[in-house]
């Protein structure tokens, strides 16, 4: 039987992901004073729990909503997040970033918890709106002397991996118990977001 597990292409993709995650730092074209950026960029999105919660929630919500949201949302988020990152890098100020990030976890978690099903455009707009805050935070926190290309790629790929993690977890949605589990996961994201909002306010 050609189940996804036994599909050579799926296995090949899994191997590629594994190899990719175990990748050594690339040292192409090192210049004086330039740190190597891929791993630094990769670590950045996964180093803050507030970012992780929101990005995994995007994947969970996409999985709940099904096609085409399952891929539109994870595509929209990194693209708009990069716009936010670009603004942060350019020094364009954006007020209330910490609130925006915490609110993103609360609302996205709530969307998963209550299995909210808005039109695709609304869901993408909501995800995109909050992605700007996440990107801006990353852009302004960027350490000096990094390789722009490698850092950017690491940063975006890590974000995509977090979405993929959310989608992976979200595949349990096909079962009744999985739907309940996803709602619980959404609730946990809300709790986490509330904690970060409380921290931002205090």
């Amino acid at each position: 039987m050609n189940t996804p597990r036994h599909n050579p292409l799926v296995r090949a993709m899994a191997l590629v992901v594994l190899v990719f995650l175990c990748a050594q730092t690339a040292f192409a074209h090192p210049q004086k004073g330039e740190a190597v950026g891929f791993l630094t960029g990769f670590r950045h999105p996964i180093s803050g729990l507030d970012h992780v919660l929101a990005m995994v929630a995007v994947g969970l919500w996409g999985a709940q909503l099904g096609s085409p949201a399952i891929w539109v949302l994870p595509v929209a988020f990194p693209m708009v997040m990069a716009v936010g990152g670009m603004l942060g890098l350019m020094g364009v100020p954006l007020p209330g970033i910490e609130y925006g990030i915490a609110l993103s976890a609360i609302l996205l978690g709530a969307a998963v918890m209550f299995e909210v099903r808005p039109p695709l455009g609304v869901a993408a707009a909501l995800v995109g709106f909050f992605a700007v805050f996440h990107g801006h935070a990353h852009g302004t926190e960027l350490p000096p002397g990094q390789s722009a290309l490698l850092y950017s790629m690491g940063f975006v790929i890590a974000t995509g991996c977090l979405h993929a993690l959310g989608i992976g977890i979200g595949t349990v949605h096909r079962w009744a118990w999985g739907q309940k589990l996803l709602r619980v996961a959404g609730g946990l994201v809300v709790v986490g977001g509330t904690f970060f909002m409380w921290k931002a306010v205090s």
Partner: protein
Amino acid sequence: MKDATQSRLPLYAIVVFTFVMCALPAEAHLNSTGMGPFYDGLIHFLMSPEDIVPVLALALLAGLRGASHGRRALFTLPVAWLVGGLAGLSAMTAKPHPFVAAAWFLLLGGLLAADAKVSLRVTTALAALLGVYHGYLNGTGMGQFETAAVALLGLVFAVFVLIALAAAFVVRLRAQWARIAVRVAGSWIAASGLLMLGWAVRTR
């Protein structure tokens, strides 16, 4: 029965990908492999993500559009790269402009993410422009003409192999999710381009 070549494509892709990701320290212009200038040029390309990513994006885009686009890119890009490289050999110096590099990422990644229905002429033009631009940058500062020309051949060979593998890999994809995965890769490339653009503005 499955075609043996088709079933092995993912394996070939993995081997190439593994080779690329296990990058060891490289020095621009040119790092000696001890195996001669041909391999120096080949390794130079494989160790330069700023070259590999746009080529990969173009290959994926051409692959998504079908075999005819893949074939056109397969032959146009290496030839243009060689022409640009030979022109660059006679140039004194040229520095890659960060805005242009970001623009290539944005353009090719954006087209790929949008699954843009580009015509064969557009694919050809993109391949030619990309090849001439990157080839020219590679050609400058490569050193003496005789050695550099051989290194350039190695480099062009690597471009040919990469675009052949990547485009062929995508052309055979039929599953919807697999084609979406390719588009997601395009969105990541475009997003990286946006960040590079911000970086270029910051460091200007």
